């Protein structure tokens, strides 16, 4: 054994270095965030609970029932039921999201040509049964009113999903940001 190793063993040099490190850590701030009292900072655009955009003119969903979101969803958790409306046009009868399958990727928001579905910044919706976490149309619409009312809802799509639309506008033949023709 070399002299250095011998000195290390007799005087516990490495153990003392470890002790110095833990002692210094004793006086640093803990990194714990105590959940209900302190909450982690949520960045804008956080993908939380789903909400269906409420069409201000009809009061029902903006969704036309094209099914692009359901087709694009990796977990296949969107269920859309459409019927024939009064004037022969297609209306959405039921739009349901099975929340427990969702992976919160945001593909549905990206795919929707009419910006009719959004992911709000709400993440505090734990419940005790599977039924409570099966989002029906009414629940989804009310989410929009609760979490995206006012300016938030208006700016949401422009800020996060289609930021160039403000500068360039929508070309004539494109489906995006065209009013749905119902109002």
């Amino acid at each position, binding site marked *: 054994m070399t002299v250095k190793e011998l000195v290390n063993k007799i005087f516990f040099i490495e153990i003392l270095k470890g002790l110095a490190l*833990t*002692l210094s850590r*004793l006086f640093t701030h*803990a990194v*714990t965030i105590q959940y209900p009292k302190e909450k982690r900072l949520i960045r804008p655009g956080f993908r939380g609970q789903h909400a269906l955009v409420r069409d201000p003119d009809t009061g029902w969903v903006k969704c036309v029932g094209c099914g692009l979101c359901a087709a694009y969803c990796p977990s296949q958790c969107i269920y859309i039921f459409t019927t024939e409306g009064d004037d022969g046009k297609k209306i959405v009868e039921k739009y349901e999201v099975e929340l427990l399958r969702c992976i919160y990727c945001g593909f549905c928001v990206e795919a929707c040509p009419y910006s009719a579905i959004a992911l709000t910044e709400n993440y505090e919706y734990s419940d005790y049964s599977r039924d409570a976490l099966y989002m029906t149309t009414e629940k989804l619409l009310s989410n929009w009113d609760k979490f995206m009312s006012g300016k938030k809802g208006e700016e949401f799509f422009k800020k996060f999903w289609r930021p160039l639309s403000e500068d360039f506008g929508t070309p004539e033949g494109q489906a995006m940001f065209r009013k749905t023709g119902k109002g």
Partner: protein
Amino acid sequence: MTIDTLIHIAINIGITIINIAIVFAVAMLHVAYATYFERKVIGHMQVRLGPMRVGPHGLLQPFADGIKLFFKEDVIPANADKPVFYLAPVIFLVAALTSLAVIPYYQGFVIADINIGLLFIFAMSSLGAYGIIISGWASNSKYAFLGGLRSAAQVISYEIPMGLSLVGVMIMAGSLNLTEIVNAQHESPYGMFAIPQIVGFIVFVIAAIAETNRTPFDLPEAESELVAGYFVEYSGFRFALFFLGEYIGMFIMASIGAICFLGGWTIPKYITDVLPFLSYVPGIVWFLLKVYAFIFFYYWIRATVPRYRYDQLMAIGWKILIPVALANIVVTGLVKILL
């Protein structure tokens, strides 16, 4: 026997009973909060908070733990040796608690001022090993049995260097009486025996950590490997008894370290010469400070050092600590004779 002597005896017994009650209550409270502070200190050393929810900053956590353990179901393994199973935690706890009786907490306050105080504490810690072996055997479980064997072997192996390191203190103090040892430290020019007996002190600290089955020597009860070793089959209140016994053992070791090496309830004369106001502080405060420092060292080591493998553990005890402690005795004896 006149009435006078009878009254005298009755008063003495009364005072002793009150002393016992005070020491028991204070020791239990200390042990309960030792568990709380362990979690807090180790938590902060790992850059996280410890218990925070029960009471302000988690201060009522020990009571929550106690109530939980009290109400848990008492599971006894099938084919376990029942009388022995019931007896084991009691032996362990009683051996630890009895040692509290001979420790002088401050000038003049000992429940039992016996002239062989130090030897009594060794004897009681050896009896504690019975509790370990018996619990390992009576649990009728392979893990418990192996854990019990290993732990008992560890405890009795480390009692030897612990005793030998204290022989150096005995030589310098000239007595086994704990009060006399503290007084001898106050008289000596060093103030604390930790300074001339530094080698003995280090051996004592290592042996004390191994005696109480604490990290880095806690393989027999390794919480992540053997799931509590020899007391794995104990649940609810019996587990609480083992746990209490372990923490009281820690306090006993800390008290012996404070008394024999750090000066007990006194502070060295050379410090009171420089700062005379310190001599107005009551002795119990110094004693408690030294014990708390020792206990903090237990927690500090637990947060820092990984655990030793069992053969490394035994090798350290037999091959390193015993020769070092023996050399310390030889040197101390020579110095005492020749100087």
